[in-house]
């Protein structure tokens, strides 16, 4: 049976731990702390928590000013508001001056579900990856979330970490070793490499299991860090498997698929296939239904694997 856990709850609990260790950790939110789980930190350290109200642009500027004064600042909202709503502020106040601000956004992707298009961040990774100094991470489960948040706190500079609304399957155990920018090979295989991030890692593992029974050996890579990208692992996968599938809960353009393709095209061109949200908005519906409708499933990955192998 699959055990599920909440990535945003893992974030909230990790913030408390960090807050105890470091008095310079400050947390900001934009009236969503009950959902982003930053309220857990607020309860523990009320003097170091500031609710900026529905002022995302202002929140980013405040975060930058605090960081310029020596603070390590975590600022949270839903992924759609933490990217699209305040992009110029991210660019001018955090990215260009390289300030120590960690944007941890929940409710990423279409798994937000019933709230629909306005609340589904499907272009956030493209936007954040376009900002030169941002480290961009999409953890694969709640355990990896804790490690990613700790790593962000321990590393100077701007970070974007994207989390989910629903609970997601646990694929790691406590003690999981996480390094920023270093992908994790979850399964070895010679016929094709599936490079995935976030919720798609668990689905890639499922697909690989089914395909193994059909005699297709899949390498599964958890590419949790989109920027800086683990180019070495991508080049190795292209050289050794000669076919790559990229699976992500994001639009086709500017996300993990685009970024991996750029490396593959430059270093080791091989056939590629992509499992993503293509070039359109999603709908209201249950997260499982939306994933099914968009083909963001283990079956969708299996199909992509079979297509790409034929092109080898």
């Amino acid at each position: 049976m699959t055990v599920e856990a909440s990535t945003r709850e893992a974030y909230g609990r990790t913030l408390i731990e960090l807050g105890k260790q470091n008095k310079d950790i400050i947390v900001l939110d934009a009236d969503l702390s009950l959902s982003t789980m930053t309220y857990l930190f607020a309860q523990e350290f009320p003097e170091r928590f500031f609710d900026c109200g529905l002022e995302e642009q202002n929140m980013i500027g405040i975060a930058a000013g605090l960081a310029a004064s020596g603070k390590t600042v975590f600022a949270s909202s839903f992924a759609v508001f933490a990217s699209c709503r305040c992009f110029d502020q991210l660019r001018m106040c955090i990215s260009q001056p390289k300030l120590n601000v960690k944007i941890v956004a929940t409710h990423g992707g279409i798994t937000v579900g019933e709230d629909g298009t306005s609340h589904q961040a499907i272009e956030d990774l493209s936007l954040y990856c376009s900002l030169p100094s941002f480290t961009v991470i999409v953890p694969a489960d709640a355990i990896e979330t804790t490690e990613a948040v700790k790593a962000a706190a321990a590393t100077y500079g701007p970070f974007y970490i994207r989390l989910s609304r629903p609970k997601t399957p646990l694929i790691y155990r406590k003690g999981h070793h996480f390094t920023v920018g270093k992908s994790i090979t979850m399964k070895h295989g010679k016929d094709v490499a599936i490079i995935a991030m976030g919720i798609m890692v668990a689905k890639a593992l499922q697909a690989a299991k089914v395909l193994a029974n059909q005699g297709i050996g899949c390498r599964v890579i958890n590419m949790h860090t989109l920027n800086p990208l683990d180019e070495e692992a991508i080049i190795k996968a292209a050289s050794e498997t000669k076919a790559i599938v990229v699976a992500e809960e994001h639009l086709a353009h500017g996300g993990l698929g685009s970024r991996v393709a750029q490396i593959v095209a430059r270093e080791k061109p091989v056939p590629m296939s992509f499992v993503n949200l293509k070039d359109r908005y999603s709908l209201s519906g249950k997260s499982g239904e939306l994933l099914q409708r968009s083909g963001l499933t283990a079956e969708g990955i299996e199909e992509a694997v079979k297509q790409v192998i034929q092109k080898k």
Partner: protein
Amino acid sequence: MSNHIKVASQDTTGTNVFDLTVPELMEMAKKLRCHIITMIATAGSGHPGGSLSAVDIITALYFKIMHHDPHNPRWKDRDRFILSKGHAAPALYAVLAESGYFPVEELTKLRKLDSRLQGHTDRNLTPGVEMSAGSLGQGLSFGIGIALAAKLDHHDYQTYVLLSDGECEEGQTWEAALSAAHFKLDNLTAVIDRNQLQLSGWTRNIMNIEPVNEKWQAFGWHTIEIDGHNFDQILTAFEEAKTTKGKPTIIIAHTIKGKGVSFMENNVEFHGKAPTLEEAKRALQELE
């Protein structure tokens, strides 16, 4: 560097290291206006109008009001100055150079390739610059972050933010106005360089922001209105801001765009256009 820190740590009296008199401030401002004209004319581009309207306010801060150490730009107890209207960078650069943050000769490098003096301010390149600005409406938020940090750390430094009047059209300015009052930031003082002109014309025609004073009062700020070219009034306003408790202060400084150069005054053409070398010569003759 250790020597600089020593100087700064000795300087705990709360007074400005220059402590100029009003006649000296006027003399300094005249010199800075000459730098601004020369810099922008040499660069061949830039924003003279808003630099000339703002320069008296910035001069008062660096040469009389603020507690700062040019030899130790990131001294932690310094008062902070945030130039939100980043296009007035030449005015800030001139002040920083004359107060010793970098050599005055460097001013001629404005906007040149590989210069530390970018067209709009860059916090990581120029000693003394607190914020990378240029996209309007963001400085007050940045100042709030700094003022909050001061409260958290029980530091008594002041944070000053200079806004343009055009910036009061940006929604973020009003987000920041709400939150600075909400957080009761009495260690934060904003100044509006109310020169009434923006890039394409009079603010009242482009997007009317009046009544300015009542708006800021309604947002919970203590407001002061002054002539932004009168040093007595500027200094008194900053003193009043410092002693106002429980709320942030905004100084609405009525200024003249292009102040000091007859053919630039109230002339919107010189919002973002460099004077020709001939015009610069005339401007310098007028100033001297």
